[in-house]
């Protein structure tokens, strides 16, 4: 008995192109199936077909083919029955939590099934102790950390005792330690006899827990269905994130097959874990041995910054660092360490409770956010909190108009920013109609047009698939312009076309992103700056991969 999908095709009511074309697949109990593919390949639609949202909630599409859930057709079953066979955890746990207290979040599905109270309590306590979240039962859901939220969402689904579990990008919002924990848990669940289906573009990470079955999708079709080693050879490594050694091997083969062309250096090792680690390290070494030749006033300077919200406890303790032209800083640290609170000081949205933040030499307390915006550009994590204009052009001119740039400059910076985020010619498109990945790039461009000297980004890779974020990071950071930034910083700012800013600071959970695009790392834990510099043991970070075991992280967080 298994979940059997046969000849499934689906077209949404509002589209003409089918989202799924002739999908046939089998998902067996006790196995982990990985479904990979770039955004828009149909992964999410396939999940909606299996869990019954199509056709039960999305009623107007064109559906062909059948899905059998352990012997019964899912079109014939009502949602109440399907929900006890197939459990689904959506991509953003925050968006699916419906109750304000953890215990009621877990009971929600059981209540809907009309279960007696005693049985509910029994199931809740069993699932809570299985997931080790007994201590969370009476917490408020919105106070939970990202990892905790996901476990609570999972608990709410598991309490309904499904035979199959669908997880849509379960790693997207987790820090490395929580992600590793989540993956171990998924293996345990599979071993207990559940059919696990994981949609994830971080293929590398899921393969680490030995997925038995891998499916690769492109343009609504399955283009690969088989075991993990086969997947490595079958898919486009530019679209999804494969383990570094596999990529290096594949790149060598491709290079050999077309020796005259060769691969551009920038594309040769996109995950950048091994072969170009050396060059990067030598670049970092250079930066360190020959310290910055910039004039005295740093772009951003934190001087013994302490911060608390209102009368609450102190969130940041004695943070000091300086940021100079040429710095590309990755800010790392576990969920809830105070990273966002810290970077909000750089744009004046937070002002230190004690200590000082100097922006280009001026105390942030004497400046308004709008004034600071001339110097520092801040890109929020989610583009949906800032896009509003009817066209991309208006969206991009909003910032520069606010800070009083002249029309000529604005026009120039719009076209330059669109090139930087690889969306030239999109001037008249409404941003709200674009894909999420494109929206993210527009949100970055809308800050770039303000010509900031420093660009600050909060989790640029969150909610993005691999192909997307490597594209825009390559484009705006200009990684292919050679290692380090020594060549750039010698040039006058006006001649620098590829990079519109002097320094970059970004928050990330993704160590690869840090290793690939930063030349300096700040590590924050519990509101303290625990490590600063290129000499934070990047080599150690790199070798352990994205999911750093807690023990490895310990030396940095203590």
């Amino acid at each position, binding site marked *: 008995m298994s979940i059997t999908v046969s000849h499934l095709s689906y077209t949404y009511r509002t589209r003409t192109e089918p989202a799924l074309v002739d999908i046939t697949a089998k998902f067996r109990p006790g196995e982990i199936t990985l479904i990979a593919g770039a955004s828009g390949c149909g992964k999410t639609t396939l999940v909606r077909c299996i869990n019954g949202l199509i056709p039960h909630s999305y009623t107007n599409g064109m559906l062909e083919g059948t899905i059998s859930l352990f012997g019964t057709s899912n079109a014939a079953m*009502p949602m109440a029955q399907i929900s006890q066979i197939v459990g689904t955890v959506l991509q953003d746990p925050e*968006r699916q939590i*419906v109750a304000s207290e953890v215990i009621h979040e877990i009971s929600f599905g059981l209540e809907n099934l009309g279960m007696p109270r005693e049985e509910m309590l029994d199931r809740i306590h069993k699932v809570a102790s299985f997931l080790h979240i007994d201590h969370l039962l009476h917490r408020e859901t919105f106070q939970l950390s990202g990892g905790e939220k996901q476990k609570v969402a999972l608990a709410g689904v598991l309490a309904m005792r499904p035979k199959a579990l669908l997880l849509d990008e379960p790693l997207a919002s987790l820090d490395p330690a929580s992600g590793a924990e989540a993956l171990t848990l998924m293996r345990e669940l599979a071993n207990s006899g559940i059919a696990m289906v994981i949609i994830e573009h971080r293929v590398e990470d899921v393969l680490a827990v030995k997925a038995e079955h891998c499916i690769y999708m492109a343009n609504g079709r399955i283009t690969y269905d088989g075991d993990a080693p086969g997947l490595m050879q079958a898919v486009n490594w530019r679209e999804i994130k494969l383990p570094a050694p596999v990529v290096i091997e594949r790149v060598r083969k491709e290079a050999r097959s077309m020796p005259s062309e060769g691969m551009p250096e920038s594309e040769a090792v996109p995950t950048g874990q091994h072969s170009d680690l050396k060059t990067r390290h030598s670049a970092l070494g250079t930066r360190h041995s020959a310290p910055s030749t910039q004039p005295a006033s740093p772009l951003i300077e934190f001087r013994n910054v302490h911060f608390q919200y209102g009368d609450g406890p102190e969130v940041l303790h004695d943070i000091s660092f300086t940021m100079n032209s040429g710095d590309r800083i990755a800010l790392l640290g576990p969920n809830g360490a105070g990273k*966002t609170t810290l970077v909000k000081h750089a744009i004046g949205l937070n002002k230190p409770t004690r200590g000082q933040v100097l922006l280009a030499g001026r105390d942030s307390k004497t400046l308004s956010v709008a004034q600071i915006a001339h110097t520092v550009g801040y890109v929020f994590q989610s583009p949906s909190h800032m896009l509003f204009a009817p066209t991309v052009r208006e969206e991009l001119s909003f910032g520069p108009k*606010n800070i009083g740039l002249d029309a000529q400059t604005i026009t120039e910076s719009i076209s330059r920013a669109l090139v930087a985020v690889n969306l030239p010619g999109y001037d008249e498109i409404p941003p709200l109609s674009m894909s999420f990945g494109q929206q993210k790039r527009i949100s970055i461009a809308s800050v770039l047009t303000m010509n900031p000297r420093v660009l600050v980004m909060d989790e640029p890779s969150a909610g993005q698939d691999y192909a997307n974020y490597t594209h825009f990071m390559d484009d705006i950071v200009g990684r292919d312009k050679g290692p380090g930034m020594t060549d750039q910083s010698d040039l006058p700012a006006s001649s620098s076309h590829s990079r519109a800013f002097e320094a970059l600071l970004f928050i990330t959970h993704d160590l690869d992103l840090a290793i690939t695009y930063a030349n300096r790392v700040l590590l924050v834990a519990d509101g303290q700056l625990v490590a600063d510099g290129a000499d934070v043991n990047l080599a150690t970070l790199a070798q352990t991969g994205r999911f750093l075991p807690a023990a490895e992280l310990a030396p940095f967080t203590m």
Partner: protein
Amino acid sequence: MPGRGGLAQKPVPGFLHFSMLVTWKYKPRNTLIQRLDPRSRLIFYACFLVSVFMFWDLRILLFFLAVALLAVLAAQLSWRDTRRTWLFIGAFILIYALLTLLTGRGGFELYKTERVIATLRAPFTIFNWQPTLTISIEQIFFALSQFARVFSIASMTILIPYTIDPAQYGITFRRLGLPDKLAFAMDLTMRFVPSLGRDFAMTMDAQKARGYELERREGGLIGQVRRLAPLLVPVVIHSIVSGEEITDAMDLRAFGTQPRTWLRELVYQRRDYILIIAGVLMLATAIIGSTLGLGRFWAP
């Protein structure tokens, strides 16, 4: 309840920067009011509301005002937690009462004769019209009564979001007789308000970082409204999208497919019966009194 009330530990980022937003926070407090069953409190509240509406006599209204103030004191809300709400509502009521006093509007059906105690004439004329303000005893007492009515209702209303655990709204409305779906919708709505507030604060921060200043005055009325678009559009779109996602999540867990049970239980205690009886008695007395013609507008 561990973890409750620890809001300060992990504040919603940016929340404190948006001073316009009236934010309320429930906190667990060891008070009689919060030990009461929310159902009995809502029943009492409804009786109170209807009773107040029946009277214009300041002497009777002072009784209701006293009940409301007693409830506020018993709730032990700290000034710091509730300051913004009180100031907002206080200012609103004061302006309202003052307007009533100055225009005398609204009182004409309640009193027929006026005893003028002062007539203020403006020392100038506009188009041959001299603005004149007459102040009568009736006018003053009408304004005072108005103030007492609105203030006692407002105080009782403010208590609700501060002292009823938002997690109890669903079951409360269900046990008061609303159908499952409607009761859960009330629950979701109550939590939608703070999440809307958070979205608003985040959008405000994001646009501020793009040099947006809400305070800046430009253009006429239409220009002013247009200036709100960068705030309103993202918040509205975001609400719609997350509304759809929540609907999916609820469908996936079989919401609304059959009659549901509720994990949370509500049990009436003796104090709840006392409160309900008090509320019903108050309402009955009010109805009898007002049908007998008591409690009409009064001025000495």
